[in-house]
């Protein structure tokens, strides 16, 4: 067996057999004796106050056990809000949600009461009978309007809607703009959508009166943050709160914070002395699960006569929604992501984070990056127009070169470390993408298509993405007395195949088959510290921990066997769940026997050299982010009559350092691009002027389907990072990040006969027809 029998191979997933046969165990599949079910009473207004909740009729319904309002919650919860995940000094008003609103609601769907009943149907019947004396207030429905003087305040006791301000930059921006050969200036408006994992959220809580202990199952990306929030709310010791993630049916970011339901359901379980479950439905998901991407960029680029960037300056308004569960991380990421793979001598970005009476925003696949890449790549296309250069050539002239790595961008990243690109070859990535996409032949293809009356276009999206963020993610690797290997990690999976990836890394160290390894993740009872599955960080963090812990465990197994056989560890090798003396007739001891040796016998001393642990733990703590990169090229056809866009070809060059399992990375990229196609063409969360959501079903909010998403042509470049023992970088978000930029550029290019410019997304069919009409009207006005 070579040293990498598994790492780097297209290994099939350990997760699949259960999931393919209906044996998965998702949150709503959990059955506990005496289980009660919950339904929440939610605000029908985007902004309102209330003084009285009449639950008398609801409480009287047969099968209803309780209707709880804020004042009915335990004393520990009174006057408390959910723990803020990421405090930041530039936050003006660090407000998170109350478990249940006490007197004011700030978005449609905010919960004011919960019904606990024998079943969900009865709970919903009762929830409909709860009467609240709503007093509607004016609502802030859009982030730009919210910042105007006299705008309605999102929170009634605040004078304005400013949630925070940031100023970032470097270099002498004013000087470069004074001396520029060209200045291009535009406004970009990427819009709100959300993650929509196919499984909605949900919580089951059990309270054990003896010891005041909770067991909580929740469909989350971050069980340890839920544990922290429960501990914070109830003032309990860590060992009193165990949070377990069952199989999780997708996350994509919005399952990476703590929600009110994760505190209210445990409280209800304690009050009633019964297990309680709440399973979110899709309507609730549209109303209450966090969203992202409404931003307004007003940006200008200064360039020299050769199309080289001299500087970028501008302002960014970021829509926070009604609360700040994740602080102001996303606009911070946006502002530091904007420069991307390009050399930028001077940069100044002023960010204003605005509260609105909309669902709070938190990181969603890409986390502020798709918007920043949209802004920068659209600027590059604007520069191409201004200079008459080809869009690919403008980019080529501005790339940071591989020889310049590590490259200090001159900014501080959200992890507090400098934005220091570690490895990557950006010019090569674009060159490979263009070659694969047939970019050079495209003008001929476009001309031929136009001659047939078909509008085809091509667009480029390049990006650099900070991944693998700290603080850490741990792993314990243990050889069990049954001879199998167990890996425990804090990381919770939601489809990424952590079990397979982590088993691959361990299997190479211990020379076992991945089927000999059991991986258990996302259980605070088995791994006391954890951060969460976000920021494309699990392979880097948990994977590195598994690598170092497995290597240490290998050393322990060898030392133990060496003591047993009275040989040197170098004379031993691992093979087939055993340690054996090298050579033809070597003696051997199985993993099971080694594990039993370390267990000892009651009352007897352990043999010399034997310690009671055949396990090793590691907490890899990355020194800084490691930067993945890629180039996407989209080729599309647009029907100007209907606004329909067909993606003809989609090329991805993707560099996430050392690839552990190319099959899984391909899957992440292809799935990520699909999400990006939604952001580019389909998915828009629409609110009316009073901040009421208008898209609350999958019939109104369109998700990409099999007919829309093409097979991506994916090329892997591998620029290993020196920042972790695997050389790996994050791969979960790169598919999504540049896709809107590339696709919108391609749509615009296809419609170049109409002379229009696209600066927002998604570009739905309706929007495309609107833009064409506006362009035609403009040209009619211009005609004398």
């Amino acid at each position, binding site marked *: 067996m070579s040293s990498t029998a598994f790492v780097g191979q297209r290994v*099939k*997933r350990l*997760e*699949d*057999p*259960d*999931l*393919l*046969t*209906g*044996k*998965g*165990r*998702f949150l*709503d*599949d959990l*059955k506990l004796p005496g289980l009660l079910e919950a339904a929440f009473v939610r605000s029908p207004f985007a902004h309102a106050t209330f003084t009285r909740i009449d639950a008398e009729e609801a409480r*009287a*319904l*047969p099968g209803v056990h309780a209707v709880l309002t804020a004042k009915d919650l335990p004393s520990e919860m009174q006057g408390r809000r959910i723990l803020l995940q990421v405090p930041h000094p530039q936050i003006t008003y660090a407000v998170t949600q109350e478990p249940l609103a006490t007197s004011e609601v700030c978005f449609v769907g905010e919960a004011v009461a919960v019904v606990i009943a024998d*079943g969900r*149907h009865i709970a919903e*019947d009762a929830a409909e009978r709860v009467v609240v004396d709503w007093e509607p207030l004016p609502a802030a429905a859009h982030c730009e309007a919210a910042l105007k003087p006299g705008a309605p305040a999102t929170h009634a006791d605040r004078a304005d809607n400013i949630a925070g301000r940031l100023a970032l930059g470097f270099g002498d921006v004013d000087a470069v703009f004074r001396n520029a050969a060209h200045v291009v200036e535009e406004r970009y408006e990427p819009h709100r959508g959300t*993650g*929509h*994992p*196919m*499984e*909605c959220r949900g919580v089951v809580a059990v309270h054990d009166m003896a010891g005041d202990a909770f067991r909580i199952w929740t469909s989350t990306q971050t069980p340890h943050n839920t544990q922290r929030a429960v501990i914070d709310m109830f003032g309990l010791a860590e060992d009193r709160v165990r949070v377990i993630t069952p*199989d999780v*049916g*997708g996350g*994509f970011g919005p399952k990476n914070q703590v929600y009110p339901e994760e505190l209210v359901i445990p409280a209800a379980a304690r009050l009633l002395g019964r297990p309680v479950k709440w399973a979110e*439905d*899709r309507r609730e998901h549209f109303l209450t699960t966090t969203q992202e991407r409404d931003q307004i960029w007003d940006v200008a680029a200064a360039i020299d006569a050769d199309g080289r960037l001299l500087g970028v300056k501008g302002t960014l308004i970021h829509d926070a929604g009604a609360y700040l569960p994740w602080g102001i991380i996303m606009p911070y990421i946006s502002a530091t992501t904007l420069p991307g793979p390009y050399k930028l001598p001077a940069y100044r970005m002023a960010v204003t984070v605005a509260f609105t009476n909309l669902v709070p925003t938190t990181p969603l696949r890409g986390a502020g990056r798709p918007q920043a890449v949209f802004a920068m790549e659209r600027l590059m296309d604007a520069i191409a127009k201004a200079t008459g250069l080809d869009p690919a050539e403008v980019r080529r002239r501005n790339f940071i070169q591989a020889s310049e790595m590590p490259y200090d961008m001159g900014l501080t990243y959200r992890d507090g470390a400098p934005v220091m690109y570690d490895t990557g070859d950006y010019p090569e990535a674009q060159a490979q993408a263009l070659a694969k996409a047939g970019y050079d032949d495209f003008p001929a293809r476009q001309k031929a298509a136009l001659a047939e009356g078909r509008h085809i276009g091509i667009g480029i999206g390049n990006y650099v993405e900070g991944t693998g963020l700290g603080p850490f993610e741990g792993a314990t690797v243990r050889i069990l007395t049954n001879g199998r290997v167990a890996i425990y990690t804090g990381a919770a999976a*939601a*489809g*990424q195949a952590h079990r397979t990836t982590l088993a691959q890394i361990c299997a190479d160290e211990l020379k076992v088959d991945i089927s000999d390894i059991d991986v258990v993740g996302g259980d605070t009872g088995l791994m006391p510290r954890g951060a969460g599955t976000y920021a494309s960080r699990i392979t880097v963090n948990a994977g590195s921990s598994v690598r170092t812990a497995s290597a240490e465990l290998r050393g322990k197994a060898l030392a133990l066997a060496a003591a047993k056989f009275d040989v040197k560890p170098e004379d031993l090798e691992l093979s087939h769940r055993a340690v054996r003396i090298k050579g033809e007739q070597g003696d051997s001891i199985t993993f099971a026997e080694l594990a039993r040796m370390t267990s000892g016998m009651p009352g007897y001393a352990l043999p010399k050299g034997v310690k009671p642990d055949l396990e090793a733990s590691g907490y890899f703590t990355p020194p800084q982010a490691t930067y993945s990169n890629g180039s996407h090229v989209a080729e599309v056809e647009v029907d100007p009559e209907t606004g329909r866009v067909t993606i003809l070809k989609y090329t991805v060059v993707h560099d996430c350092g050392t690839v552990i399992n190319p*099959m*899984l990375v*391909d*899957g992440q990229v*292809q*799935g*990520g*691009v*699909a*999400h990006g196609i939604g952001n580019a063409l389909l998915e828009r969360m629409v609110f009316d002027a009073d901040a009421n959501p208008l898209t609350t*079903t*999958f*019939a109104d909010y369109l*998700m*990409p*389907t*099999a*007919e829309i*998403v*093409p*097979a*991506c042509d994916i090329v892997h470049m591998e620029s290993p990072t020196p920042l972790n023992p695997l050389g790996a970088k994050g791969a979960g978000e790169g598919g999504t990040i540049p896709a809107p930029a590339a696709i919108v550029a391609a749509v615009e290019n296809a419609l170049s006969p109409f002379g229009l410019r696209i600066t927002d997304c998604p570009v739905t069919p309706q929007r495309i027809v609107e833009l064409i009409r506006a362009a035609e009207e403009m040209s009619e006005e211009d005609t004398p």
Partner: protein
Amino acid sequence: MPDAPPKRKITLTVNGREYTAEAEDRYSLADFLRHALGLTGTHLGCEHGVCGACTVLVDGEAVRGCLMLAVQAEGCQVTTVEGLANADGSLSPLQQAFMDHHGLQCGFCTPGILTTLTAYLRDRPNADEAELREALSGNICRCTGYDTIVRAALAAAGAMREGGQP
């Protein structure tokens, strides 16, 4: 005080086994399978008939479990994801193709996609890629971007043509 919601006993066959259980008239077939019969392999993704995660086969036809009432399934033959494997418990050619081609990530939409394709490939074993993509357009998958699902379906169709079952 409103009357308690009406209930009745429902008898049907699921995956070859007869079940009788009581359910409120308003229960969807998916809720009935999951909560009354404990067959939790069928998942609910939207409960308004768009996402297709809850698709089951009723008398052989792919049906949205959230849009059909349990009482309408009285006397019917229902197949869920739990009933798709071979008799010996090994993966069916379609299930195996999903494993081989990485046709699933989180696995939540997968049961509905497997049931949809089981019926579709039974009726159209020679389906091409465009037809399969159309057949799949009523099932939303947020993880995979669909291509591996299409590859898996094409591979399963090939295996079926060589004599296997779906």
